[in-house]
């Protein structure tokens, strides 16, 4: 079978046998899992990072800090696939819960990226001059207000490129959610391949879609960086 025939075959299957529907579903699930996962991760990560930079004289911050360390250690110490499988086949049955596989993927991606983002965020917060916190505290703002209004916005600016990489990593890692049966891009193209008895073109197209997504995200981050750099000195 020559390559032209393979492409024709793929296009035929893509259009006439609902291949495009599978791909659209897969694409939307992939994006959904990565984007919502990232948003959950940002919230969790910010909270954990804040807890980890609170001064630790008192008991409560110490306990919270210990808990956060444990959380980050667990999620960074195991592969995403394992977390997915454990959540889906161990944690949910134990809790007598039933959730669909996309929801489970979103939750696990959120929890997982929360651990990574907390570390990124902590580095970002520590990269902001401590004088910024003191400036806020010196005019009567609380620790958390100064954190939210002054320190974290500057930290976010510093870590935006790293966060972009985290998002790209999430997008790519969505390719493991079919382990728990979620319909992502991999599952869609695998479906096309299996039914058309031909894998070369489907997988090639899948790779292309991933690359296009990653390029788009990189572009988006560049634009965001530029708009955030307003507060820097204009030469």
């Amino acid at each position, binding site marked *: 079978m020559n390559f032209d025939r393979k492409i024709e075959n793929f296009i035929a299957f893509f259009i006439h046998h609902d291949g495009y529907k599978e791909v659209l579903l897969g694409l939307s699930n992939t994006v959904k899992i990565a984007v919502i996962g990232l948003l959950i991760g940002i919230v969790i990560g910010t909270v954990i990072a804040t807890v980890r930079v609170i001064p630790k004289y008192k008991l409560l911050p110490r306990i919270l800090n210990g808990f956060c360390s444990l959380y980050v250690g667990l999620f960074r110490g195991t592969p995403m696939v394992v977390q997915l499988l454990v959540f889906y086949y161990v944690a949910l049955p134990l809790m007598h819960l039933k959730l669909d596989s996309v929801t489970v993927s979103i939750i696990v991606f959120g929890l997982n990226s929360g651990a990574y983002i907390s570390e990124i965020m902590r580095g970002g917060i520590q990269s902001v001059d401590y004088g*910024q916190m003191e*400036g806020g505290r010196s005019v*009567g*703002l609380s620790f958390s207000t100064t954190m939210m*209004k*002054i320190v974290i916005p500057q930290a976010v600016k510093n870590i935006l490129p790293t966060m972009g990489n985290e998002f790209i990593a999430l997008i790519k890692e969505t390719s493991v959610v079919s382990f728990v049966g979620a319909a992502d891009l991999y599952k869609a193209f695998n479906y096309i391949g299996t039914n058309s008895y031909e894998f070369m073109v489907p997988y090639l197209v899948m790779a292309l879609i991933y690359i296009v997504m990653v390029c788009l995200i990189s572009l988006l981050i560049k634009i965001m960086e530029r708009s955030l750099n307003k*507060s820097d000195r204009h030469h």
Partner: protein
Amino acid sequence: MIDIIDLKKSFGKNEVLRGINLTVNKGDIVAVIGPSGSGKSTFLRCINCMEDPTGGKIIFNGVDIADPKVNINIHRRKICMVFQHFNLFNNKTVIQNIMLSPVICAKQDRRKALRHNLFHKDKIAVRSVADIKKEARANAERLLARIGLSDKANVYPSTLSGGQKQRVAIVRSLAMNPQVMLFDEPTSALDPEMVGEVLDLMKELAAEGMTMVVVTHEMGFAREVANRVLFIDEGVIMEQGEPAEFFGNPQCDRLKDFLAKVL
């Protein structure tokens, strides 16, 4: 206004302040001098509990603010601090720097008033958020006009000169209507030609009756503006007095040595 009673501060084993007593009255201008590492900054930072004292009391308006149970943020609105390195908010424009805390604090008070009105018969007047912002902006514009930087309202601090930054930092504190202002070497990080503009602004505040505690290496300022000068060394106030007497007729040897070196 502020009674500092037997203030102590250690960092681990390093005993930096070893029992400082001082009363600051309304309108006082207290200059604090002393050798490097003697604990001047630590002393100043303990006054508004930027550093938590390890012993003693700081009585401000009748409340011991060194007590960890006291909500220090409320009191810091009235004891503002100006730093050597300005510490302006880099992610806010000049006018936002000045407005930020007044607006947030007024909003906090507003929420408190609303909660109070919910449960009590005696109602507190509640201002609208729009009014709060309008008032804070008008006040910030007035303060910027005062220091001649109205045209810089919408630029970011990174574009200002050191002297301009410090003057903005001073009016950022002024916007809180503080009862006391603490200055930690406010001119030490400035190029010599910018020291004057900052000292002039501080002199203006002094003339208006602002209560100030100023850690400084500017002996001229201490002599001219302060009504009391403290010499801190080895974690205690070694000597204090009115500037004329203090500089003209120093008693202890440490102070004589120090003055011989810096004058």
